[in-house]
């Protein structure tokens, strides 16, 4: 069992806090969905959790131990990071990008070993993108790039996976594919924290939801209890109905229906 615990975290740039008093925890096998409007500080929060920005207060702990003072390599073996897929500057192959996920497991000046290559291959396989391995990262589609970055993070063999809006700028099919991988990754015993600005995605894949608004947590709990019309009104400033649907196979799902004429 692994556990990422963020306690009373204050974060921001150059000593100026954009968020404070943020506390939550994620455990193995669990998906925590971080909801919030664009520009609401989700990326800044993640950068602080990952140690890319110094925390202005509070702690980030993995399995009860604060990560402050850990080496980059030790952090990378605990926390895998999936950034938003960007266009990529260098024409590395997909396989090479995934192999970079092994960086934290290499010795001082070692090159990747057979075992590192095997981990990269099996990660590609588990995500169903082995056929992309030899293609240039700069030439595959947006959805394929995002899958490559998920594979890279999984090749780190982390205990916690941090994903920053992995579905942003993806088409509908790729959004669904990425979300199904998010669930599957949690099923393998990794603690997953994923940010999104789409509450329906939280209904689709989250065990728990944290709502980040105005630099602090405006809600934390089960998707049903947390994603309410009142809270969506407060966070996004629009009127939304949250409805429960019964599917043909008997499953009951929730979804958000915005009302455009009251927006």
């Amino acid at each position: 069992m692994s556990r990422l615990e963020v306690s009373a975290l204050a974060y921001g740039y150059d000593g100026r806090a954009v968020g404070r008093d943020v506390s939550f925890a994620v455990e193995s096998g669990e998906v925590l969905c971080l909801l919030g409007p664009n520009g609401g500080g989700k990326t800044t929060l993640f950068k602080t959790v990952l140690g890319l920005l110094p925390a202005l207060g509070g702690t980030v702990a993995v399995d009860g131990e604060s990560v402050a003072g850990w080496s980059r390599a030790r952090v990378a073996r605990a926390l895998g990071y999936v950034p938003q897929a960007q266009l990529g500057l260098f024409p590395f192959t997909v396989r090479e990008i995934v192999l970079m996920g092994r960086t934290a497991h290499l010795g001082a000046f070692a090159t990747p070993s057979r075992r590192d290559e095997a981990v990269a291959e099996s990660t590609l396989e588990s995500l169903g993108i082995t056929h992309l391995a030899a293609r240039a990262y700069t030439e595959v589609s947006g959805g394929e790039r995002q899958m490559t970055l998920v594979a890279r993070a999984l090749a780190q063999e982390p205990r916690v996976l941090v994903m920053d809006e992995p579905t942003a700028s993806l088409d509908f099919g790729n959004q669904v594919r990425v979300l199904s991988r998010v669930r599957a990754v949690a099923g393998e015993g990794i603690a997953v924290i994923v940010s999104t600005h789409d509450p329906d995605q939280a209904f689709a894949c989250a065990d728990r939801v944290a709502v980040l608004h105005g630099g602090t947590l405006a809600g934390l709990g089960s998707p049903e209890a947390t994603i309410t019309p009142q809270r969506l009104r407060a966070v996004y400033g629009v009127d939304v109905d949250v409805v429960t649907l019964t599917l043909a196979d008997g499953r009951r799902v929730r979804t958000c229906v915005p009302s455009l004429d009251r927006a």
Partner: protein
Amino acid sequence: MSPETFDALSLSVRVAVLATLANALVGIPLAYLLARRRFRGRGLVDLLVTLPLVLPPTVTGYYLIVLLGRRGWLGAPLYAATGWSIAFTWYAAVVAATIMALPLLVRTARAAIDSVDRDLERAAYTLGRSEWRTALEVTLPLARNGILAGLVLAFARALGEFGATLMLAGNIPGRTTTVPLAIYSAVQTGEDQTALVLVAMLTVLSCVVLVVANRLGARAA
């Protein structure tokens, strides 16, 4: 070529090469720190490094005497301990050229490092690379052309240094007389032919250096 001319030329090249090496050792880490770190005294370090660019070289030279001369802040204890002083040796010419060239390297290299996308460094960090390794393997290679252009400029500056060198190293023929000082002496004593040869050599060398620096700078942009 007269022996004096040859001495001046070989000394100038030696001084410029050593000053450029010293610049690389001190200036590249300094440029990285100024570009990437926020530390106490950062503004002061920036000011001190840049000052030789705007002060008259004789003023910089005067400060160097105050610091390194036989009765200087650092020079006096050194003289007391070893009976040796750096002033009026050719090492002094290297020190003067290094200090005078440093702002050119640091400013150019810093601009090149500033233009490296920090997300590339962050990617290295999230994959587990230390800041030190990331600087060596990601940042500095991407800033390579700007850094090289800065080193070329520093070399040119070191080669042409006059004022601070005269103050700290003096103008001792065969020992501290670099090409710029030899030109001054030649003109003073009416050896126009010698002056012309030295002037032509420095001009050609400087033109070559400028072209190289521009090429590197253009590739960096």
